[in-house]
């Protein structure tokens, strides 16, 4: 690695902690961000000369804090900044000057920072954009590219989000146990959304958007290091790892989605799968079941099957049943129907999803799965209508292309049955 790239890696890894502490000092996102930027600039000057400080986050917090205070003073009194030498000399100061901030403070700081970004007052798209800007440090342009909107539109979205957060008055006291677990749940949901932004991207967007999956996993691991005994955070991390493990097998040469059943399982990343299975094992020991644990267990059953026909659909059916009880939702029922089709046949599956038609009429997967069930029952005309409806609702060109393949096979009028989409488990209810 070159000099600059090690500094980059250290700054990236220290960012969440440093910005979070600066937010606690200044209670203002813009100010915390500016202070961190200033600290980074000074790090780029001081570190190549002096080497990395022992505790990079502490260094950045202290330097950022002092720099921001200087800026405030300068603005109010128009005084010049202190000499650069004074600041450079502080490189070792964290050992003596800075009171060590203990782990518990850091933990609540980072949780607060993440929570601020996914405040319930913010719509989901603003939550993710704000988290990428503030926590991950992506530039507005990078985020705009990931969301396929203009830089200006993204700038506005982030500015609006910051304004709402400022108005929401997130408390800065140490949170109570109840507050903490509520914040944790909100943050977990936001990280899952962030991951799905990357996961649902088509092959053409993989460059800019697949990085969102990596970032979601990085933040999940960070959260898990702060809250090592939370089974739902273990399970969420496992769930993301299991989905990400299939990244290399999910698209063919033309960029079309390859169904779980048709994927080359040798391309699955066994290291990520091993890590995920270890986390699920750890989570289950706590005997505190939750929705992420159930979803991770379902994903693990897919990951454990060496061949598609080895998949334990009966167990998956039961797990979706458990998820339905914990978190009733038509999407969960739809997922369950896909498993039920394997165990009890397409007619049973179709019967399960017909009552959902009203609620899921605008949902791509509903019409895709329904078409596949109808096709298996040789109700080809109805299947065609369902597939056409699915294409109209496809979220990505790859999804549309996949349904079009089903239609093509239908048009080829081959009487053979096709399991098709029934094997598709969105796994992201």
């Amino acid at each position, binding site marked *: 690695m070159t000099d600059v790239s090690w500094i980059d890696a250290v700054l990236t890894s220290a960012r969440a902690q440093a910005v979070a502490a600066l937010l606690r000092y200044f209670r203002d996102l813009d100010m915390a961000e500016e202070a961190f930027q200033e600290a980074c600039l000074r790090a780029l000057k001081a570190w190549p000369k002096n080497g990395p400080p022992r505790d990079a986050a502490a260094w950045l917090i202290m330097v950022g804090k002092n720099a921001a205070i200087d800026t405030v003073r300068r603005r109010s009194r128009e005084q010049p900044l202190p000499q650069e030498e004074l600041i450079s000399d502080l490189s070792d100061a964290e050992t003596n000057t800075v009171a060590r901030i203990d782990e518990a403070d850091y933990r609540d700081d980072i949780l607060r920072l993440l929570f601020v970004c996914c405040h319930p007052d913010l719509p989901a798209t603003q939550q993710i954009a704000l988290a990428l800007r503030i926590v991950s440090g992506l530039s507005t342009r990078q985020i705009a590219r990931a969301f396929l909107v203009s830089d200006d539109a993204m700038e506005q979205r982030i500015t609006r989000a910051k304004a709402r957060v400022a108005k929401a008055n997130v408390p800065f006291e140490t949170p109570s146990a109840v507050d903490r677990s509520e914040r944790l749940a909100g943050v977990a949901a936001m990280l899952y959304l962030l991951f799905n932004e990357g996961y649902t991207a088509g092959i053409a967007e993989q460059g800019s958007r697949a990085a969102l999956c990596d970032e979601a996993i990085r933040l999940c*691991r*960070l959260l898990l290091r702060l809250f090592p005994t939370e089974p739902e955070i273990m399970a969420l991390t496992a769930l993301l790892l299991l989905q990400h493990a299939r990244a290399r097998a999910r698209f063919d040469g033309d960029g079309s989605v390859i169904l779980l059943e048709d994927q080359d399982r040798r391309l699955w990343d066994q290291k990520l799968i091993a890590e995920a299975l270890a986390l699920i094992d*750890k989570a289950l020991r706590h005997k505190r079941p939750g929705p992420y644990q159930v979803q991770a267990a379902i994903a693990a059953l897919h990951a454990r099957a060496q061949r598609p026909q080895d998949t334990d659909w009966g167990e998956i059916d039961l797990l979706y049943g458990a998820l339905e009880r914990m978190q009733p939702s038509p999407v969960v029922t739809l997922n369950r129907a896909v498993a039920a089709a394997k165990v009890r046949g397409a007619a049973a599956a179709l019967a399960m999803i017909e009552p959902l038609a009203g609620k899921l009429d605008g949902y791509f997967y509903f019409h895709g799965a329904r078409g596949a069930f109808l096709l298996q029952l040789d109700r080809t005309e109805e299947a065609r209508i369902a597939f056409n409806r699915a294409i109209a609702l496809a979220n990505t060109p790859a999804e549309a292309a996949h349904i079009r393949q089903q239609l093509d096979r239908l048009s080829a009028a081959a009487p053979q049955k096709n399991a098709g989409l029934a094997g598709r488990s969105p796994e992201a209810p």
Partner: protein
Amino acid sequence: MQYAILCYHDENVVSAWSKAEDEAVMAKLAVVQQRLATAGKLGPVVRLLPTTAATTLRKDREPPLVIDGPFAETKEQLLGFYVVDCGSLEEVLEIARELGAANPGGAYEIRPIGVFNPGSARA
């Protein structure tokens, strides 16, 4: 004599590497390892999964206590180890320097091995 080279690094930094950066470091390390293997000096090489996957059994009490996470909460974490067969500490240090050049940051602790049982579990 056999030595363990215990690899410590800040896990936050390592996990912030992109896949490409990670693979580049591994490729550089593989070159050093290949040379050691050819010379018959390389024993097992282990890279551990993140400490978030770790579980600790505290056996200083009865009954022993199971805790989530690694044993020691330190700035740098034990992320893996090598076993090498060398004639002297100087030689191990030279190997560690080469590995360090391929993978900067953190520290290697060099510990002579007392008992080495290669075991029977397959790699």
